[in-house]
């Protein structure tokens, strides 16, 4: 069952599974294992199905790799090659480590997207039920070109909410003692991503050093040893890889502080109006430097208390506090970063404006709003008007201009129509039959056939056909009960969907499309067999007078004809 097209990324021999020797294959989209001497895989997992991998601790005799699936099942591989078991295992592990996150994200995202689409669109849901649940086509086929179609649409319109970072992600890395005076940290890709997102400085270090200077493991070992991770430790050595990160953070913190706060109500610096530095109107001055706070923090903590006075412990305490503030700010920022390209722009422009000499020209709006908020008493006020929901427009110009015909120039104005009618009337009035040039009756009727739906000239456009189908329903609604009508509608949409798939394969110019067109044809046949025929029979049993499915069959037949034509052409080319 090994598909030849799959790219094999890694082959590891002498891997045991359930006490059977075999070979482990890591391929582009799945991992598989087959017992020795046999040409098939007994174990095969798509990467998307794997939740995580676990490895046996370093010191253990058995070198194993365990895969845990989303379903909760797990598979354990035992690397049994005496010489290179560890290396094999690590190679497999590293590769998996790279591959898994890609699929994981994709799987989750896709699943979510599909779910959302089905929920939002009842027609699609019905279609899904008709085609996939009843196993006319497989789910993949169903989604194949739908997702790509929609993802473009939606990624622009729906700003998906980013998942934030848990503030405690560092705490979640619980070190475990390994029994011999060491600590072990378990890192998952989630944690690593959190670290990178929160501390860009570390990410940069990682990019600089891994893999050419350090292995990944060394990098993280150093990370956990550094004072950087242990916030209470005071920076000691310069050789520390992360001392630079710490400095960078310090700088970041400083710049954050330097930017000041946007909300003037929380700006502690401008809070106090100590106008003690008063200068006389006439020009004589008293500028005392009264800084007493008799009942301040402790007693009049003078700002001159230099750092040298502080003990090491106090220093480390204040370092912890600084780090916590910084950490929280970074976590918050990491959560918000993606979200507001718009806000960023706004703030950027305002900040550039703000930098222009007269900063307070631009300050009032936000200040005014905050002040108004602060003095408002919602329960004392009469409510003014209902709260309205804001309108979220995809294309605001269409809202303001109304639907505009796309090809105005092809439309005829009413004046044109009237003119032409007049013209025709005029012609008719002056009509003189010219009996010598009359068409024969057979030719006339064939022309009419060609012009009616399904005819040679009207083949294109299933859309029109569907319309006609609906039309035929609406023509005799009295004669057909509503449940049959709705069933017919479903059949139409399902057939339309299948035919769309089918026709989208033409022109068939790749092997993939070839394969697909064959599959689609069988799908159509299956549809006819499992869906259309029972319906036909049912209808015939009850209302033999009308042929409701005639048009559907016609459409299918056209498709078969096309397929047949294509196939014969292909056979001819091959021979």
């Amino acid at each position, binding site marked *: 069952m090994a598909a030849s097209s799959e790219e094999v990324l890694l082959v590891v021999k002498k891997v045991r599974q359930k006490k059977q020797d075999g070979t482990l294959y890591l391929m582009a989209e799945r991992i598989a294992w087959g017992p020795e001497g046999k040409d098939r895989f007994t174990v095969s997992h798509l990467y998307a199905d794997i939740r995580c991998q676990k490895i046996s601790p370093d010191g253990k005799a058995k070198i194993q790799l365990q895969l845990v699936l989303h379903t909760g099942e797990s598979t354990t591989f035992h690397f049994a090659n005496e010489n290179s078991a560890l290396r094999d295992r690590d190679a497999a592990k590293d590769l998996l480590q790279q591959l898994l996150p890609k699929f994981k994200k994709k799987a989750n995202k896709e699943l979510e997207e599909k779910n959302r689409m089905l929920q939002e669109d009842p027609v699609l849901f019905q279609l899904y039920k008709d085609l996939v649940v009843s196993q006319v086509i497989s789910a993949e086929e169903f989604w194949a070109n739908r997702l790509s179609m929609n993802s473009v649409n939606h990624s622009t319109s729906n700003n998906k909410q980013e998942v934030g970072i848990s*503030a*405690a992600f*560092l705490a979640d890395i619980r070190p475990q003692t390994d029994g011999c005076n060491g600590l072990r940290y378990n890192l998952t890709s989630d944690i690593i991503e959190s670290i990178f997102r929160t501390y860009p400085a570390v990410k940069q270090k990682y990019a600089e050093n891994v893999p050419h200077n350090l292995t990944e493991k060394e990098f993280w070992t150093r990370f956990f040893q550094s004072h950087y991770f242990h*916030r*209470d430790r005071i920076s000691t050595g310069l050789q520390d890889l992360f001392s630079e990160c710490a400095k960078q953070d310090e700088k970041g913190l400083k710049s954050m*502080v*330097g930017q*000041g706060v946007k909300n003037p*109500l929380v*700006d*502690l*610096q*401008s*809070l*106090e*109006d100590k*106008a*003690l530095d*008063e*200068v006389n*109107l006439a*020009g*004589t*001055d008293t*500028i*005392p*430097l*009264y800084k*007493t*706070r*008799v009942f301040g*923090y402790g*007693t*009049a903590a003078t700002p*001159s208390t230099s750092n040298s*006075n502080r003990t090491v412990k*106090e220093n*480390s*305490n*204040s370092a*912890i*506090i600084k780090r*916590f*503030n910084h950490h*929280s*700010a970074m*976590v*918050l920022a990491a*959560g*918000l970063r993606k979200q507001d390209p718009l806000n960023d722009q706004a703030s950027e422009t305002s900040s550039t404006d703000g930098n222009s*000499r007269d900063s307070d020209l631009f300050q*009032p709006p936000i*200040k005014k709003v905050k*002040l108004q908020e602060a*003095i408002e*008493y*919602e*329960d*004392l*006020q009469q409510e003014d008007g209902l709260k309205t929901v804001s309108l979220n427009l995809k294309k605001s110009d269409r809202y303001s201009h109304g639907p505009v015909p796309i090809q105005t120039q092809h439309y005829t104005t009413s004046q044109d129509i009237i003119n032409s009618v007049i013209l025709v009337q005029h012609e008719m009035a002056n009509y003189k039959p010219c009996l010598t040039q009359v068409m024969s009756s057979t030719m006339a009727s064939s022309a009419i056939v060609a012009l009616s739906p399904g005819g040679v000239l009207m083949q294109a456009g299933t859309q029109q056909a569907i319309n006609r189908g609906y039309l035929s329903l609406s023509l005799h609604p009295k004669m057909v009960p509503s449940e049959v009508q709705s069933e017919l509608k479903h059949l139409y949409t399902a057939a339309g969907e299948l035919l769309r798939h089918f026709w989208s394969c033409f022109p068939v110019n790749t092997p993939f499309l070839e394969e697909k067109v064959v599959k689609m044809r069988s799908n159509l046949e299956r549809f006819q067999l499992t869906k259309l025929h029972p319906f036909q029979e049912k209808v015939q049993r009850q209302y033999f007078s009308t042929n409701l499915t005639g048009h559907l069959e016609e459409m299918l037949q056209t498709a078969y004809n096309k397929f047949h034509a294509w196939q014969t052409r292909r056979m001819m080319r091959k021979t």
Partner: protein
Amino acid sequence: MKLNIEGLLVYFPYDYIYPEQYSYMQELKRTLDAKGHGVLEMPSGTGKTISLLSLIVAYQRAYPLEVTKLIYCSRTVPEIEKVVEELRKLMEFYAKETGETNKLLALALSSRKNLCVHPEVSSLRFGKEVDGKCHSLTASYIRAQRHSNPSQPICHFFEEFDALGRQVPIPPGIYNLDDLKAFGRRKGWCPYYLARYSILHANIVVYSYHYLLDPKIADLVSKELAKKSVVVFDEAHNIDNVCIDSMSVNLTRRTLDRSQANVETLQNTIQRIKEIDAAKLKEEYRRLVEGLKEANVARETDIYLSNPVLPDEILQEAVPGSIRTAEHFVGFMKRLLEYLKSRLRIQHVVQESSPQFLKDIYEKVCIDRKPLRFCAERLRSLLRTLEITDIADFSPITLISHFATLVSTYSKGFTIIIEPFEDKTPTIANPVLHFSCMDPSIAIKPVFERFQSVIITSGTLSPLDIYPRILDFRPVTMSSFTMTLARTCLCPLIVGRGNDQVAISSKFETREDFAVIRNYGNLLLELSGIVPDGIVAFFTSYIYMENIVASWYEQGILENIQRNKLIFIETPDAAETSMALEKYQEACENGRGAILLSVARGKVSEGIDFVHHYGRAVIMFGVPYVYTQSRILKARLEYLRDQFQIRENDFLTFDAMRHAAQCVGRAIRGKTDYGLMIFADKRYARADKRGKLPRWIQEHISDGSLNLTIDETVQLSKHFLRQMAQPFRREDQLGLSLLTLDQLQSEETLQRIAQIAQQV
């Protein structure tokens, strides 16, 4: 709505009113009628400001001759701006109802930093720099020099104002700081000097306490304000400390060193001027003999605020001859500096009174009391004569001169403490001379004497009777108002024990106890799991917070808390804390939730509100006593005991409780808001502590919530929060805690309102 408050028509700019607002206005009216002072405590977040403004503006309109001006003092710049905005709302309502245009002039005044529009000066970051730069552009001799030397830079805004601004008064209206700036820009006038000039004829002035309480500033700014003014001190629970601060001086060795440099500069300048322009110094000498006499004439008309630095009786005399010439004065200052330096070279703590100090200085360096008293005045005059431009550089020597004047003027109510080192670091010499005022009534006395009505109000003034005692005045009304509630939107809980039954307390003996710290951590951890959005926690001091945070970090408690919420911590650095605060609000805003660890008595606890989701729970870890080992505090306690018969313990508890109440009160604004108030110390359960909380908090402490364990607290909190999360509509409140005009007219309601105010 239009209200009838005992015969006075009051426009109130809302459609509904809280009963306590009505009651508050009644009390206020009575105070104004009696032309006396009042102490009013009204729960925070029940619309105190708008009630005050509505009533006083109405009073002003009804009796324009009785009350000519409202002087509204608040603490912080944002608060000042809020008051002006509320006033604007009120005046808009007036305009709408009466149809006439507003004839009132109301304005806010703040320091140059907040008002300057000069492109270069306003870009400076610190207030002192702005003041210094402004002075260097606007001082009289600079402007005089400009006549001879046109390249001398001056401030055009000030010149324009000086030329035109005083002739036509600023048109009536409401001017907030930004409005003043906009007006100044439009006219090309300096908004700061415009505001300072305009407060003289404005109907309503809103500014900071210091403009009235600090004698050095009050003398410049508020000197000529009319006697028939109503003065309001809002958020006045700390007013005694403001008074004390404004009269106290701290001198360090650094101050002295820098003063030394100042004196050198002065000497050199004098030398130079003597060579060039000896006439100038002569002129100064002549003026000193006459100059102060002129000032004396102006002072006799009694309408001026008496300046405690220069009491009236000295002004009968001219500057004593010993310091009249510039060289003599510089020599005098040198001697004074040397003496102070020698006093700072000590190994042990010294505490003495002003007379002792004066006696010692006379014996050691033969400096008399009299020239000392003139020190500040003489230095000012010298600096002006020497045409010093960068005045900010001379602040150390100015500080010394103020110290000299103060110490020689007051023999009572002050103490001098010289500490050779800080208590925490006995090995590092860092001598400080504290000249500290112990009697807040000294600074505020002129205010009470001069203005006909002074209203002291805040959300937390309990126990009310202590304020008249320490500020030494006799109020005509003293009232505390409760909060009428349709649902109990505040939930004070006293946590006394951990789940392990260990009593929790920040008491000195147990504060470092491992179990206490752990229990505090568990309390915060548990609450972080159940309280939505923001939690604010206050510690008793910064050092204590640092220690606790460190040990929580070691125990891994903080990590667990981080699972629930982000953590932000106050630091001694204001800019850093501002950033943390903003991030904290951001985290509350976007639904992540956050915890702010902060310090009682810190900047955050005094200036920032945590309304609605910014503070769903406030935790007070421990009782925020002052650092009782401080010698300054001890001296003050002694003074209080001797002078006002206030027992030390009473004062300490009072001080601690007002700060605790202040902290927890920050979380409530309006009756739609709600919040937990958690007092985590078993000492809060005692009657003497509990009894000193404001009535509106006390009422809601039931006997069942006195000595809770952490688990019980969590249960009660959960229950409370679940209840509060239910929709709360106006109909639920109407008639109970919210009144319409119709309801106000019923006899029954009025009777109920009468019970809200509790006279003391």
